[in-house]
């Protein structure tokens, strides 16, 4: 193998992985034997690191993104490294109240919340308490990282509230949050915690139980003296005011790291299911202990809501003459039946299934991030998107993430690209999305990039049925959430050339990465497509026929 080929292969393994063990061994051997190859590969790695670090640089005028994006301002919401780091340092200063009474600390936290200071509005510690104490950085607008799933009557945030990085504390009751990666956390009062990222929470004091779904492994629960790193699990931790604590794993496994005063890991213990450990920082010790599952609070969350439709809903849809209408009642021979006789056929692929809700409603179910599962519609799709069109459906997302809900593709030997994508985003700093948003793209000819796109900030909530619709009318694209317009923009009247519609995924390649496939996790129901733009009042009427609407 010559050097460029070997280097290209090394880059492939370094950047994307996927090499066979034989290829890896061979490349490592060559690195061992060839100093020139080592030098050249190190140059490659150094340049990759430099460009990545420069991409999010601060000040903004030096951002590599701006240069590459030719100043389109697409990352105007970028949060600087400095801001995030100082925010985390602020969270470290905060536990200075440890050692005083819990009541004082929680009272201070509650006062902080009442003052509207949830977002990095830190209390100012007494300089006498710590040599590092003093005024803290001014608050900045950070994107949300979690949403409240529910709580007791004492909860400081209502269900559906979006939470940005900062402190959350309660003296009574409980609250369950869900990060935008799908990690559910129930805190039992009294507690004080700091949300520091979508895959990281700092528990300063109190009890928390954490459920990490497939795809979100690596979540970290930090505390002043120890840290729990999830390896695909459900676990709980208890942090006391003196820094001691316990951790128990209920399912899967997790690593517990004992930290020193610099926050460096000094000792690690892997916990498997039904194992517990006690952490004592003053003794620098992790001690295996006997506990019961019942010693910890359970994850508290409301049951998945059912979609309740007005009795006339199906008749209303049929009265609007759709080109295709799928009610997700059952799967027969791999097919979901279309209420409209014709050529449009929907297949259920992978582990895509039909779920039956408590109140009896049936819906399409997509549950796995780690598999290619989706519904695919073929036949007659091009005719729907030739000119004006409408897509209408109900969706219930298990959590908020970048999920492709509907995509239309042209798949043949010459063209493999999208002509339409409707997807949701959650807190995408690079494009200035602070909470959640809907995003649509039209492309002609079908492609993997480019085309007019439309963004609309929208308060999507996980575990709740939402009605979503998209229309194109005389070249104007409109996105509706629960009957309300959340985005409207001219997008062109080109005939969209597609022969496949994917529901719950960007396209059907099982080898795609999660980023590439944007597979949805959740439920979908009452999908209808129309070869014309429905009137706004018709969209609103369909949305109001579902029980989730205001």
């Amino acid at each position: 193998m010559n050097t460029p080929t070997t280097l290209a292969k090394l880059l492939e393994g370094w950047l994307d992985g996927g090499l066979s063990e034989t290829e890896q061994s061979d490349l490592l051997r060559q690195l061992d034997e060839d100093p020139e190859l080592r030098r050249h590969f190190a140059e490659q790695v150094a340049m990759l690191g430099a460009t990545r670090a420069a991409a999010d640089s601060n000040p903004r005028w030096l951002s590599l993104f701006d240069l590459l994006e030719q100043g389109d301002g697409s990352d105007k919401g970028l949060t600087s490294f400095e801001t995030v780091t100082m925010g985390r340092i602020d969270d470290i200063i905060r536990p200075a109240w440890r050692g005083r009474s819990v009541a004082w600390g929680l009272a201070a936290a509650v006062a902080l919340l009442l003052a509207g200071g949830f977002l990095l509005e830190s209390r100012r510690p007494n300089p006498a308490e710590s040599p590092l104490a003093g005024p803290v950085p001014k608050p900045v607008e950070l994107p949300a990282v979690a949403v409240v799933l529910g709580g007791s009557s004492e909860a400081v945030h209502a269900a559906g509230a979006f939470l940005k990085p900062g402190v959350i504390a309660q003296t009574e009751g409980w609250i369950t949050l869900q990060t935008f990666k799908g990690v559910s956390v129930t805190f039992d009062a009294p507690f004080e915690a700091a949300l520091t990222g979508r895959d990281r929470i700092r528990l300063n004091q109190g009890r928390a139980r954490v459920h990490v779904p497939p795809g979100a492994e690596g979540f970290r629960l930090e505390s002043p003296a120890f840290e729990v790193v999830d390896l695909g699990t459900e676990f709980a931790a208890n942090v006391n005011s003196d820094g001691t604590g316990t951790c128990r794993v209920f399912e899967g496994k997790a690593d517990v790291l004992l930290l020193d005063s610099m926050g460096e890991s000094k000792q690690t213990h892997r916990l498997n299911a039904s194992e517990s450990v006690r952490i004592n920082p003053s003794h620098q010790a992790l001690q295996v202990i006997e506990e019961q599952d019942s010693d910890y609070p359970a994850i508290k969350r409301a049951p998945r809501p059912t979609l309740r439709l007005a009795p006339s809903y199906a008749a209303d849809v049929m009265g609007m003459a759709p080109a295709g209408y799928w009610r997700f009642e059952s799967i027969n021979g791999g097919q979901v039946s279309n209420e409209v006789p014709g050529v449009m056929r929907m297949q259920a692929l992978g582990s895509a299934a039909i779920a039956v809700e408590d109140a009896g409603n049936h819906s399409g179910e997509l549950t796995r991030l780690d598999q290619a599962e989706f519904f695919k519609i073929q036949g007659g799709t091009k005719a729907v998107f030739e000119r004006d069109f409408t897509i209408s459906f109900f969706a219930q997302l298990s959590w908020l993430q970048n999920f492709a809900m509907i995509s239309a593709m042209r798949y043949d030997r010459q063209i493999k690209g999208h002509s339409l994508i409707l997807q949701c985003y959650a807190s995408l700093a690079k494009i200035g999305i602070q909470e959640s948003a809907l995003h649509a793209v039209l492309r002609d000819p079908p492609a993997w990039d480019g085309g007019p796109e439309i963004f609309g900030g929208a308060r999507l909530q996980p575990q709740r049925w939402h009605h979503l619709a998209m229309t194109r009318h005389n070249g104007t694209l409109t996105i509706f959430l629960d009957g309300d317009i959340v985005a409207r923009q001219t997008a062109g009247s080109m005939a969209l050339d597609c022969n496949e519609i994917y529901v719950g995924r960007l396209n059907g390649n099982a080898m795609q990465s999660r980023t590439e496939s944007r597979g949805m996790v959740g439920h979908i129901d009452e999908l209808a497509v129309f070869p014309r733009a429905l009137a706004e009042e018709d969209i609103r009427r369909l949305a109001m026929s579902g029980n989730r609407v205001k």
Partner: protein
Amino acid sequence: MMMMDDKEVADVIRAVLAGKSPEFSRLVREFGLPVRSFIHARVQNAADAEDLAQETFIAAFRGLAKFDTSQSFEAWLIGIARHRVLGHFRSSGRRQKTNELFRAECLARIESELSEIEGEIGHDPLTRLMDCVEKLPERMRQVIRARLRGEDGSMVAKILNTTRGAIYMLQMRANDQLKDCMMKGSS
């Protein structure tokens, strides 16, 4: 971009230790890029790399009283960052993933060369890097752009309507040109 001299760094550290903790943000601003470059070069997952960079500064903040101001603050930070990166690769969860193991093995083999190159490139490469990226042919810029957006090799190949193999060659040539350009600027 102006760099702080050693005396200014020492003054900021003294101020932080005297209770003016917001002053630490000056150190984060000043040394954020070298620390992040160091970590991004070694840790492929961008989110992990950013976390580790933040943790490096948090550890520095916690241990600031231990820093000897007659020494290089950047070298001290890089030492902390190196420790964090090693901890990252040592973490048992990642050890089990073949791709991570391969990266860790590669890194172990090229660490001394990598440190050497980082020393050669110099102290503040950002403005030079920007100039050098601007000079790249459009197709190479497209590869870098798609990569920075988080696309993997297959997707970049689709976007540029070429093969995966060609993408890695393009990436390699882009890196070569950047390195040559930056070395030229630093000499």
